[in-house]
């Protein structure tokens, strides 16, 4: 059963899983060795890589997810009519700081952004993109924040090492901020 219908079973549980399915979980569910589960996953991914499919398998947040192909987004949007749920500029800035500097406290984020971040942090917590990861051993024992699995899913990352490389080296001398095309602050973006 398992070997005859392996990829079919895998396909079924992949669709049914409410969260990214890890190799370990697949092995558990199917009663396989992880090594075997990985082979099945590779087989299934190859099947999905064939042209003419609307779905593909993506690796994110430590597991595998069945997703629609971006080429057909237009049609899915017509179906679901998603509300644009993009994050505001302030939210993304704050999230970037947390993602690259975690664990980090609110005052530390504020020192970098030069503004209060209470509300943004609140919103990010609500959307479960960040979470409290502990308390800093400092006066007042401020809460430390870090990113979540949902964060990885939201940005389609396998893990934090996949964060886009950004030169965060402050010793990078000679940085000249180029004026960007079309950057006129006459209309609010975020």
């Amino acid at each position: 059963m398992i070997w005859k219908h392996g990829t079919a079973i895998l396909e079924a549980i992949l669709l049914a899983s409410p969260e990214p399915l890890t190799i370990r979980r697949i092995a558990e569910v199917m009663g396989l060795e992880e090594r075997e589960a990985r082979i099945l996953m590779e087989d299934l991914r190859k099947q999905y890589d064939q042209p003419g499919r609307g779905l593909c398998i993506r690796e994110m947040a430590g597991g595998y997810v069945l997703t629609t192909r971006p080429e057909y987004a237009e049609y899915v949007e017509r179906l679901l009519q998603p509300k644009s749920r993009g994050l505001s500029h302030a939210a993304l800035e704050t999230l970037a700081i947390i993602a690259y500097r975690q664990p980090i406290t609110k005052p530390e984020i504020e020192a970098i952004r030069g503004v209060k971040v209470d509300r943004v942090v609140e919103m990010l917590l609500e959307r479960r993109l960040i979470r409290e990861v502990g308390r800093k051993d400092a006066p007042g024992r401020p809460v430390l924040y870090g990113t979540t699995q949902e964060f990885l899913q939201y940005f389609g990352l396998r893990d934090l090492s996949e964060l886009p490389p950004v030169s965060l080296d402050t010793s990078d001398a000679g940085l000249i901020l180029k004026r960007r095309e079309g950057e006129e602050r006459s209309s609010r973006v975020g």
Partner: protein
Amino acid sequence: MEGSGALLGRPESYTVHLANFEGPLDLLLHLIRRAEINIYDIPIAQITEQYLEIIQDLSTVDIDRASEFLVMAATLLDIKSRMLLPRPPRITEELPEEEPQDPREELVRQLVAYSQYREAAEALRELEQKMARIYTRGFFCEEVQGPPPLQGLTLEDLVRAFQEVLREEWNWREVPREEIPLREKVREISFLLSRSPGGLRFRELFTRGGSRREVVVTFLALLELIRQRRAVAVQERLFGEIWIRPAGSEPEGAISAGVQGEDQTEGGAGELPAER
């Protein structure tokens, strides 16, 4: 606008809206970028002048943000004044190799760090946009789906109806403290609901004699079921009967239940009786 010579100290008449900036650092970066100057060698006098000019009208931002802009203004003025001061004559006994500290240093460090995180934020924005074109089965859907749990009535209506129940047909009697666990009550109601697909009258839930405490627990259990979206309260017309129905039994519910389901609640109301 590009070619008209953005001479320092002679800002063109840009219309800059303070509300469009995330904060003082954002504004400063904008000014620096606009002037195309090296961030490590900021002509602090000009930048300060432009900054102050822009924040003249703080009325467009709320008071908290206004104070953030003002703190930066103070910092800039402080740096500017320190730049103007003659360097203290170097006393030979002091460490001669120590570089005189640039008053701008701290600010520059902050600006550089901030601009780098902004870059990072832009990188995240690109990922976000990429992901916006990819749909999964919906595990990231935070939006609550399904019909509104209170149809045609508000929570107040529900409370008012409950008050009527309390006021009217009850002969209160004091009973020795009895424990009616909420969970028990939730089960009971969902069991009743599972057997009455057409729903129950709000009042029916309370017509069985019981203590005040039980009535309260019943009401709480009902709210809990509604919150968990296992039951819906429907009032078809104003002042009409309030019906409690199992979630998904009414037509609108049936449609959206297929899309999202009730994955937050473990099992629907229907399977509870099996546990007993």
